[in-house]
């Protein structure tokens, strides 16, 4: 397997690696839960990853391979059965403000306007529930609101959208706001769980472009979970494929492929044949059992 990865890396120009500090470290992580008596279902098995500051990591895999579980563990929502995960040097034990989060659905607070959704982060982190009675709060709020309006425009939304409620926005607009909301916290890690999967292709494309721009401006560490190979190749600087090698319960997913991507955003339009070959190559891994008899199918792009 190693030789295949190496040969593939030669095909694509590898970006010159700058020595950067580790942002997320995943150490010997396995996840399993009991099903019935004495039986365990293993989801993830012995995952070891080191993600450097500023990397754009795309986690790719088929449905149920545990990629979302891995993301939730980095977030702190779930705990690994074995092993540790640390973000920014500290072990993750609960959900906190170390990472920003953009889920596929329910990413915005429905009871707040777009502007209030954006200002919520900075406001709560500085003034908790009773701190809002302090004298400095109003001035601080005004300042955060200005910042939020700029962020909003930066995300391609109109100033008139600021007073709308999330249900008045389209799905694409909602995700733009959700990204802006996470960015307002200026955290160095951004975790996105199938963030664009519910969108139509056109909107999806424009949001992918937006996300790439945002990433290249501030260079946060991004972990992006998706099941769409084309999206993965377009967005990431590093691609990690999770797949299980057999379908028995005690066999969890492992890292099937871990490769660097050029980081310039590969797409069919620009890279043509090379892109299609890469899609085939990646999907061979994500199917897990590398069965050559199945004719490779390129995902619709």
């Amino acid at each position: 397997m190693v030789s295949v990865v190496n040969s593939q890396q030669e095909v694509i120009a590898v970006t010159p690696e700058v020595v950067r500090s580790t942002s997320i470290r995943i150490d010997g992580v396995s996840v399993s839960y009991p099903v019935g008596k004495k039986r365990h279902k293993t989801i993830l098995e012995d995952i070891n990853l080191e993600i450097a500051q500023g990397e754009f990591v795309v986690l790719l895999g088929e449905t149920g391979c545990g990629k979302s579980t891995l993301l939730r563990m980095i977030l702190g929502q779930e705990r690994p059965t074995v092993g540790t995960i640390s973000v920014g040097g500290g072990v993750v034990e609960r959900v906190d403000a170390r990472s920003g989060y953009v889920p596929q659905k329910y990413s915005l607070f429905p009871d707040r306007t777009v502007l209030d959704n954006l200002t919520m982060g900075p406001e709560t982190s500085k003034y908790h529930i009773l701190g809002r009675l302090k004298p400095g709060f109003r001035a601080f709020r005004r300042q955060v609101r200005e910042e939020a309006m700029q962020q909003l425009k930066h995300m391609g939304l109109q100033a008139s959208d600021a007073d709308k409620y999330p249900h008045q926005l389209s799905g694409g607009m909602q995700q733009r706001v959700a990204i802006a909301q996470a960015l307002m916290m200026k955290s160095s890690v951004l975790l996105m769980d199938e963030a664009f999967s519910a969108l139509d292709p056109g909107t999806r494309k424009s949001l992918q472009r937006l996300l790439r721009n945002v990433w290249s401006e501030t260079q946060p560490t991004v972990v992006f979970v998706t099941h769409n190979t084309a999206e993965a190749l377009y967005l990431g600087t590093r691609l990690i494929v999770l797949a299980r090698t057999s379908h028995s319960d005690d066999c969890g997913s492992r890292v099937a492929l871990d490769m660097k991507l050029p980081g310039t955003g590969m797409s069919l339009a620009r890279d043509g044949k090379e892109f299609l070959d890469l899609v085939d190559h990646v999907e061979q891994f994500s199917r897990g059992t590398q069965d050559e008899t199945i004719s490779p199918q390129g995902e619709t792009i």
Partner: protein
Amino acid sequence: MATFSPFDIQARPNRIFAQMLSCVLFAVCIGLYIQTSVKRHHENSEDRVVPNARQLMSGIHSSVLEPAEESDYIAPDNASKWELFRHSMIWTDTVASGRRFLISLVLLVPAVLLALHIGLFPYFGAGFLRFVLFFDKIVALSLLPILFIVFGIDEWSKIALIVIGVAPTMILDVTQMVKAVPREQIVKAFTLDANDFDVAYRVIFRQVLPQVINSLRLNLKPMMLFLFAGEMIASSDGLAYRIAIMRRHMGMDVILPYVLWVAFLLFFIDLALRVLNRRMHPWFQS
């Protein structure tokens, strides 16, 4: 009209016709009442079971402008209508019942907050949920004798009956609402550096509040039911007390206006809550 069939799901009745149809049952009820009344008065002109318009008017007059029999109030000769109304039977009864109703409403607020904590904080859930589930199954009215012994037979036993009767259901209902809030919302709030109380009160409570108000609207009637049960069994004032007293001498001319007045009051409270809910939470889509 050609395609009129009451069993056509896809029918599109025109608006005026639909409006008229919605009034039919009201008209039928009033018609039946009048017919029965006329018939009974034909046999006995002093019939009190189905009072006619004249009797009803005098019943309404005596309940709205005259003090109750047991009241010590004697109206001065030049008393204004308003002065009379303030000492009238219906007003004093409404105030007495309304006071009990409002106090129990206020006492439901801690119950809702407890429910928020049960739904959100695992330790609260572990400690309280099973108990509330069991407590909910106790028939509140069967506790009434105990309440009379513990709180005495005046105000607090009735208020306790309402709260004990409605609170467990409200708690279970609100707990479900809290649990139904998508997990993403809580996780997202924590990534925005919220603490536990921010999440509880500024994220979850705000989101479930319109549903809580809707649940309260549904519970208005059980509340009234418990209030009436308490008042009918042991009370010396209140709307249900009056209805129970009037039954003894067949005072249907007062009972009927009282029944309609209570229905109107409940309808009004419900409407007020609905309008308030819509004004306060423009983002809420039921």
